[in-house]
């Protein structure tokens, strides 16, 4: 049965701890570039935490927002790909077929969320760091575009397991690495087609928004806005 996988991120819970980022690196075999490449903006973080400053000292605040591929329903990255490497799968995910990718980088230019990362070089894991690589996730080479997959390998594994046990996937059963790791449970993952799933319920919250919604990309990452309990405002 098809699903509409989606993620809700509660910005009132997110503390900017970056556990999700480290978990994503470990799960998805994301390469570390190096200081020089990072300085050129080539560090690869499928999920990263944006920080926005507001105000001036002493009335200053910082806000955090984890940003990953927004898994848009109307994804600007897909139509620009000449080789159909970026496509929509039956679960509504924006998938990336690595061996179709020829590295035009059109998709990265089209993505308004700068959620796509290009491999400028072949990844390097100084021995024996390569022993940690997750065999469930392919390693990308130079010239390939990559991005967050909602941990598709975990989705597939859970679906296969459920099928083998002749049952439906339970709500909350699929946990992408970031969701699994988040200490404050700021992130929730599930099926938007199931009106009773936790993501569906949270997506109906008064605080629900999407990133750059005016662009009409219909993201499947839904943010719940941070609240404030101000004493002095």
């Amino acid at each position, binding site marked *: 049965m098809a699903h509409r996988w989606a993620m809700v991120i509660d910005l009132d819970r997110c503390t900017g*701890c970056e*556990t999700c980022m480290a978990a994503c690196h470990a799960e998805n075999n994301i390469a570390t570039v190096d200081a020089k490449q990072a300085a050129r903006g080539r560090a690869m973080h499928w999920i990263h935490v944006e920080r926005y*400053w507001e105000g001036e000292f002493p009335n200053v605040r910082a*806000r955090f927002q984890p940003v990953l591929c927004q898994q848009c329903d109307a994804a600007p990255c897909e139509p620009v790909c000449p080789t159909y490497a970026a496509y929509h799968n039956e679960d509504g995910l924006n998938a990336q077929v690595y061996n179709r990718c020829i590295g035009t980088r059109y998709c990265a230019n089209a993505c308004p969320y700068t959620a796509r990362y290009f491999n400028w070089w072949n990844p390097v894991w100084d021995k024996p760091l390569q022993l940690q690589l997750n065999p469930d996730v392919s390693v990308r080479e130079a010239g390939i575009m990559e991005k967050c997959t909602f941990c598709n390998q975990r989705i597939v594994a859970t679906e296969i397991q459920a099928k083998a046990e002749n049952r439906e996937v339970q709500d909350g059963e699929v946990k992408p690495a970031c969701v699994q790791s988040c*200490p*404050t449970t700021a992130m929730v993952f599930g099926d938007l087609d199931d009106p009773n799933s936790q993501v569906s319920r949270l997506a109906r919250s008064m605080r629900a928004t999407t990133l750059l919604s005016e662009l009409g990309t219909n993201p499947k990452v839904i943010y719940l806005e941070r609240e404030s309990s101000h004493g002095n405002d």
Partner: protein
Amino acid sequence: MKRRTFLKLSAVGGAGAALAGCGHQAEQLIRFIPDETLIPGVATWKSGVCAQCSAGCGMQVRVMQGDAEVFRDGQFGVVKMGLAKKLAGNPDHPVSRGKLCVRGEAGLQVTFNPDRIKHPLKRTGLRGAGQFTQISWDEAVQELLAHLQPLAAPQAAVSLAFLTRPLGGQRGVLVERFLSGFDGARLVPFELFDDAVLRTANRRSFGYEQLPTFDLAHCSYVISFGADFLGTWNSPVAQSVGYGTLRQNRSGIRGKFVQVEPRMSQTGANADEWVAAHPGTEGLLALGIAHVLLKEHFGHAEATGSAGMQIDGWREGLPEYSPEAIAWKTGVAPETTTRLAHEIAAQSPALAVVGGAPLAHTNGMFTALAVNALNALLDSVGKPGGLQFTPRPPLSTSGSAQDISEEGKVDSIRTLAQQILSGQRPIELLLLYEANPVFATPPGWQVREALEKVPFIASFGTFIDETSRLADLILPDHSSLESWIDAAPESGAAEAVISVAPPAMRPLHDTRALPDLLLDLARRLGGRTRQALPWKSYEEMLQAALAPLAHHPGSVSAKDSDEFWKKVQEQGGWWSTDASLVPKAKAPADSSRPMKNQEPQFAGPAAEYPFYFLPYASQPFFDGRHANLPWMQEMPEVLSTGMWGTWVEINARTAATLQIEQGDLLEVASPNGKVRAPALLSPGIAPDVIAMPAGQGHEDYGRYASGRGANPIKILAPQVEPTTGSLAWAGTRVNITKVGKGELVLLTGGPTEWGAEKVTR
């Protein structure tokens, strides 16, 4: 688990032979038959314990079969073995509750680090030159024994010291017992960001020499004085889990959170209100709030027990601490102090937290006692939504290395260095384990100079760093994923917890687990040491220590001791379900007199050194121990978004006045030294404060960390908090000079982003 049993050497196959020839004759690749029951491609989750800090979070380790080049029985070869692929929190564990922190997630890169010490080493060059040669374990053990034996003789005139990171759990007990066989042996635990001030204050105020556990999930109002409790302090995972519920999850209730600190930390960035009190005045603000509460008859001074009595003038209602009287010192407007007091009074349960920089001043003890008194007034101690002290598990041997401090066998690194340099205490042999004081103490403590005078240093650590570089002999430990591992979390859970896990994978290199090595040494030494450590293996010692728990109501029920032990391993430890197991409070010391306000002392005259200097625990590196992990180097510190380096945080307005731009290379000078790093302009720091993250500036710590960034600890004055002797790392003043252009590696740009509109709509 016996390593030997797994070594079933097969004939050298054609494939193996073809793979041979990585240059080394000895490194011929040989295929071993695996005895793993792992199915290729299928993952198993095993229990684990995070060893990245002292919090003792319970983990799960995802293990899958893979081919690894390893060392077995004197030979290199390729084996099929279980390899750790991913770490995650153990959902059943009362501290981690299924979660880890960012540094915990990166623990994999310790085990698979290319810079691990892979076999025993002996120094060849001059001490500190970093030249070593490979030796066998037999040679290494013989050599160490030759140095230990004379010291084990009764009444030996010279002695040994064991310098280590703070060891919780049975590892700590083992080391302590090992040392009991040597007259005059000293245990020297060292950690840069230690919490000795708070532990001591908690003993005086509440009777527990322990870090507190917070019930954030049931709290309505939190005021934190400088504690980075969502990032690097105390038990950050447990605290983050509670924080999620503090904010959302309780219908109609969203707890308010106020942070007091002069530089916005990751934790402070989440506060509803951020109050930049002047450094070292946090205790005054706490008492200002208490003054208002007492005046308005919220709570009774008399009902606060010894916590209130620690503060001079408490009974009288703190007449010297009115919001007006403290305002000029704290920089906090009287209206703000009064309003905070009113908010706290209106929102129960309320909780005050203190940790980090406020306690790293010369008046840190006063600050800690002041916040403790405020908590007592708020009646938050031992209450839902308040703070409590985690009970100790009823083990058969004492569970904590701290317990022996009362016997007077524990020294600080500062004392040890002084004693060595003055010739007061002859230390013949220094045993070193994963502590790096040469990197993380101010030069004025002369730790390096002192260690250089020790005739023989043997190190058990996994990496060469600035301290282990001085070793004469290195007997490398397994990684924590390759060893029996345990921890007795001091805080983070309401119930008594012990985290225990068997090795998640077999060792990659020719290393030996420290506990088993010490047991082996004890066996060979005989005498008192052997009597103190009768166990054949560390597993046996752990099993014996935990045996009494089988009779306590807890997370494991079993029909016999074997089943109990098996289940403990599967579960990753044991935790109590016995509500009657309340912690035993030691009677507060009545000898300590009530404290008066004390001004913090800063090294460096203000005229010459106009800025307060604030080194802080780094999100990816903590105190520097994680700087050798490539994931952590490329992890952007969340507020600055800085990667792969160090920076100097300066208030944007101050910078403009001094014509300093983002990325300018600054020289930061204290009376004790200078460091250079690029300027990072921030709106989240007071105009008279300069901050730098700790953790970089390693001279020798593997390929990812060496020669990168700057070490702010190296310019600190040797100031201490006088009652504990802890480093007052926030007690130095500095000046800054622009000396050129520097290089900042940021994930997202700095000043241009300010005032950015919220992106969500």
